């Protein structure tokens, strides 16, 4: 029996050669699957063909002009830009204890997450690190795609134990927090490489360390916008 996901991964050429050969045999032996393959190939060709008509259409002059004559200020030396961007990431969960200690000393509170005067964005209690102040409020109330100030909520999902987790990004850092005993416990916090603009952080998508942490934490799929709202109404339980 070929699952839908495996069938389509085969159709898209995403399987390893041996696995692909097995599915190929199954499909060849099953008229229903063969018909399904033909149907979907035709659908994709039709869809792609329709949009491909755009490739030959002339690109508007104003866009070309924008590309060809960018304001002078945008010309930046690549080597310089790269030097500024040398990654300076925090260790992930493996070295969490040491990092928590640093945070507890208050040395980095100001630089890691935007915070209010006199109130750190994280606090340590019983050896665990929890979101506090502005970060805590953002995790409690903010929905994805409606950034407030510098902070943007990314994915909301359930972990393997069923707790709600939320990823977040600011210009200085990104991280993941999960609900535990009615609070947001930090599962990971990654400092942004120095000198990255918020435009870049947006364009670059998720920090690879954070992406790996999300991958290893998530059970099933992230909540969609409606699910996110419902979870908020339900107090993130």
């Amino acid at each position, binding site marked *: 029996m070929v699952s*839908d*996901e495996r069938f*389509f*991964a085969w159709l*898209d050429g*995403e399987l390893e050669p041996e696995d692909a050969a097995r599915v190929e045999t199954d499909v060849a032996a099953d008229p229903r699957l063969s018909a399904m393959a033909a*149907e*979907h190939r035709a*659908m*994709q060709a*039709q*869809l*792609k*063909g*329709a*949009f*491909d*008509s*755009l*490739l*030959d*259409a*002339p*690109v*508007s002059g*104003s*866009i*070309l002009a*924008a*590309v*060809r004559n*960018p304001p002078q200020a*945008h*010309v*930046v*030396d*690549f080597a310089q*830009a*790269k030097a500024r*961007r040398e990654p300076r990431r925090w260790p992930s969960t493996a070295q969490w204890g040491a990092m928590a200690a640093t945070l507890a000393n208050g040395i980095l509170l100001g630089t890691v997450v935007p915070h209010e005067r006199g109130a750190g964005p994280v606090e340590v209690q019983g050896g665990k690190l929890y979101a506090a102040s502005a970060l805590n409020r953002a995790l409690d109330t903010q929905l994805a*795609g*409606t950034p407030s100030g510098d902070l943007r909520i*990314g*994915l909301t999902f359930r972990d393997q134990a069923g707790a709600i987790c939320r990823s977040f990004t600011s210009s200085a850092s990104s991280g993941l927090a999960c609900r535990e005993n009615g609070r947001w416990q930090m599962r990971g916090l990654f400092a942004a490489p120095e000198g*990255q*603009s918020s*435009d*870049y952080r*947006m*364009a*670059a*998508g*998720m920090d690879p360390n954070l*992406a790996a942490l*999300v991958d290893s934490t*998530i059970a099933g*799929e*992230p909540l*969609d*916008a409606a699910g996110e709202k419902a979870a908020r109404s339900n107090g993130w339980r």
Partner: protein
Amino acid sequence: MESPLSFEDGLTTLLPRLRRFAHTLSRNAADADDLVQAAVERALRSRAQWEAGTRLDSWLYRIMRNLWIDTVRSRGRREDLHAPVEEAERIGEDPRTALEASIDLKRAMAAMQRLPEEQREVVALILIEGFGYRECSEILALPIGTVSSRLVRGRLALLQMMGE
């Protein structure tokens, strides 16, 4: 070593593809053109952040997709779901070709619009733009399993619609 010129050359070469991607996301040609314009402007502003030697296309698609998500969210989901799909405009120079192309394109855009946003972007990147699952998951910052299950649902829905 990359010369400063290569960024513009790369961007210019990729414009037709970016335009195609914009049409897969947008409900009409005017929105798509606005999206291309905005993405190009943002790419130029952020060009120092693109790392020479990494894929420029993935970087640009990511910029465009994130801009699109912001647009959709600020416009409000309800309006987006119920807005009529307008005539796709300005396709090619030859009026006859343009007419034929625009009928197919109009149907295809209408079908894409009926997909939930989450499925549409995955379908667009993989079935139309030709990215692999892994590249798509990197552009969208989603787990690969999520990409593959959204793709299954999206293409099943499309098959039904295109057959109507």
